[in-house]
C-alpha cells in the first residue's frame, strides 16, 4: 500500500469495490425502492396518513347524521355500520392511487426519474417496489381508520380473510392505475383530471352510500361494470357478512383486473413509454 493510495482514502477499504452479484431477483434493489417509497410518504405523514384519516372520520360523522334514518340498506344492519367499510375502502383506494401516481409524476417533473430507471432493476422489480409502497400506505390508512371507528362505534368482524384480501387487492389495483396515470400524465393538471374525473366518480358511485340491490335495474347494471363496486362490496362483506355480489365473483374480478393492469404497467416500463426517448 503506497502513500498515494492512503491519501486517496482507498487504504481504508478492505478490498477494491466490486460489482455486487445477485441471482434472479435484485432483492436489495426492490427493498431499497420500497423503503424509499415508504419514507417518501412517512416524511409528510400529517398529509399522507393523518389527513385522510381525519377526512374519513369527518365524512363518516356527516353522512351518519344526514342519512341515518333516511336510507334503508340491508336488513338488520344499521346504516352507520353499513357505511363505515365503504368509507374506509374509499380512503384506501384514493391513497394507494395518490402514492404511486404522485411518486412517478414528481420524479418526472423534477427530472430524477432516471435515478429509478438507471439502476440494475428489471421492470418487474420496479413495479414491485412501487406497488409495495402504495399498498403499505393504503393499508396503513385503512387499518388506523378501522381501529378508530371500531373503538368509537364498535363494528362486527365477520370474515377477517375477506377484509385483508379485498383491502390488498383493491389497494394494488389503484396503485397500478396510479402508475399508469403517473407514466401517462405530462403535467400535474393531467393527474388532477384523472383524479377528479375518473377516480372520484368511480369511488362515489360504487355503492358506499347505498345498497346496489335497491337501485333501479339500469343503475345496477352500471354498478356491476364498476370495479370499485366489487372492492367495496367484498370489503364490506368482511365486516357485516352480507354483500350485493357473490364473494367469489368480486375476488375473481379484482384479481383479474390486477393481473391485466400489472401487464400494462410492465409493457409501459419495458417499452419506456413516455419515460425513455
Amino acid at each position, binding site marked *: 500500500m503506497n502513500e498515494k493510495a492512503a491519501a486517496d482514502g482507498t487504504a481504508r477499504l478492505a478490498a477494491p469495490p466490486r460489482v455486487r452479484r445477485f441471482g434472479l431477483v435484485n432483492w436489495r434493489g426492490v427493498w431499497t425502492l420500497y423503503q424509499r417509497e415508504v419514507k417518501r410518504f412517512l416524511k409528510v405523514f400529517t398529509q399522507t396518513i393523518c389527513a385522510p384519516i381525519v377526512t374519513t372520520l369527518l365524512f363518516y360523522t*356527516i353522512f351518519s347524521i*344526514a342519512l341515518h334514518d333516511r336510507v334503508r340498506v340491508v336488513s338488520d344492519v344499521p346504516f352507520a355500520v353499513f357505511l363505515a367499510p365503504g368509507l374506509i375502502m374509499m380512503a384506501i383506494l384514493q391513497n394507494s392511487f395518490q402514492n404511486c401516481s404522485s411518486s412517478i409524476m414528481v420524479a418526472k417533473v423534477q427530472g430524477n426519474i432516471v435515478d429509478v430507471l438507471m439502476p440494475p432493476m428489471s421492470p418487474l422489480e420496479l413495479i414491485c417496489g412501487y406497488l409495495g409502497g402504495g399498498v403499505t400506505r393504503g393499508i396503513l390508512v385503512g387499518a388506523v381508520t378501522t381501529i378508530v371507528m371500531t373503538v368509537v362505534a364498535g363494528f362486527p368482524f365477520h370474515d377477517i380473510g375477506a377484509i385483508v384480501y379485498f383491502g390488498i387487492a383493491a389497494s394494488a389495483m389503484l396503485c397500478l392505475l396510479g402508475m399508469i396515470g403517473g407514466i401517462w400524465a405530462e403535467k400535474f*393538471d393531467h393527474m388532477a383530471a384523472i383524479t377528479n374525473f375518473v377516480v372520484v366518480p368511480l369511488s362515489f358511485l360504487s355503492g358506499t352510500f*347505498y345498497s346496489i340491490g335497491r337501485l333501479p335495474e339500469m343503475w345496477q347494471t352500471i354498478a356491476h361494470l364498476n370495479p370499485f363496486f366489487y372492492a367495496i362490496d367484498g370489503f364490506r362483506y368482511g365486516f357485516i357478512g352480507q354483500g350485493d355480489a357473490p364473494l367469489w365473483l368480486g375476488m375473481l374480478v379484482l384479481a383479474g383486473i390486477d393481473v391485466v393492469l400489472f401487464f400494462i404497467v410492465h409493457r409501459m416500463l419495458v417499452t419506456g413509454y413516455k419515460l425513455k426517448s
Partner: protein
Amino acid sequence: MSTDAPHEPILGGAPSARRFGAVNWRGLATFYLREMQRGFKIWKITLAAPAIRALLFASVFGLAIDRPDATMAGMPFLEFLVPGLIAVAALERAFESSSFSIVYDKTEGIFADLSILPLTPGEIVLGYAAATVSGSLMVAAVVWAALLVFGGGLPHAPLALLFFISAGSLMVGLFSQISGLWSRKWDYIISVQTFIFMPFVFLSGVFFSLGELSDSARDVARFNPVFYVVDGIRFALTGYGEADPYLAAAVSLGVVVLLWVAAYRLFAIGYRFKS
C-alpha cells in the same frame, strides 16, 4: 429636449413615474387580474371539478335515499342539500384562491416581491379579496346551474344570495390569506385545510339540519361562523333558514371585519415575509 440624447425622441418623452392619488387603481387592477388568471387558467380544476363533485354528491344522496318521504328540516332532502353543495363549492374555492397563490409564490421565492410593489397592504388585501369573491361567485353560478338537473330553480332572494356568497367567500378568503402568510410550505396550508377548514365547513349544516343534533352539539355548532353563511345561502335560495337571516348577516359581516383587520395588520407588519 437636448440634442445629445438621440434616443429620447423615439420614446416621445422621458419616462416619468406614474402618479396616482390615494389608491393605486391600476396596480390594484393588475394584481387582481393576475390572481384571477392564476385561478382560472386551470378552469377544469377550478370550475369543472367542483361542478362534477356537487353532481356526484347529489346523485349519491339521490340514489341512497329510497324513501320518497325522506325530508330534512321539513323539506325534500335534495332541496335542502342543493344550497349546501353550492355553499361548499364556493367556500372551497375561496379557501384555495389566496392561500395557494401565496404559498406558491413563497415556494418559488418570489413572495417577498409584494413588499416592493407600489401597493399598500390595504390594496394587497383588497386585491386578493376581490379575486376571491369573484372566483367564488363564478364557481357558485356554475354549480347552481349544474344542480338544476336535480330541481331547484331561481333563488328566493337573489340579493341576499349575492350577499351571503360574497360574505362567506370573504370570510374564508381572508382566513385563507392569513393561513397563507403563516404557511412556510405546502404542508402547512394543506394541514390548515384538512384540520380546520374542512371540519368547520362540513359540520356547519351543509348536509344536515342542526335539528338532527343533540342539544349540546347544536349549541356548539351555533358558534361556527360558517353555519351562518351556509344558513344564509340556504335561506336566500329556498326561503328556509334555521337562524334569523338578519342575525346570520350580522354575524357574517362581523367576522369578515375582524378577519379583514387581522389580515391587514399581518400584511402591514410583513408577517413571515419581511425580515
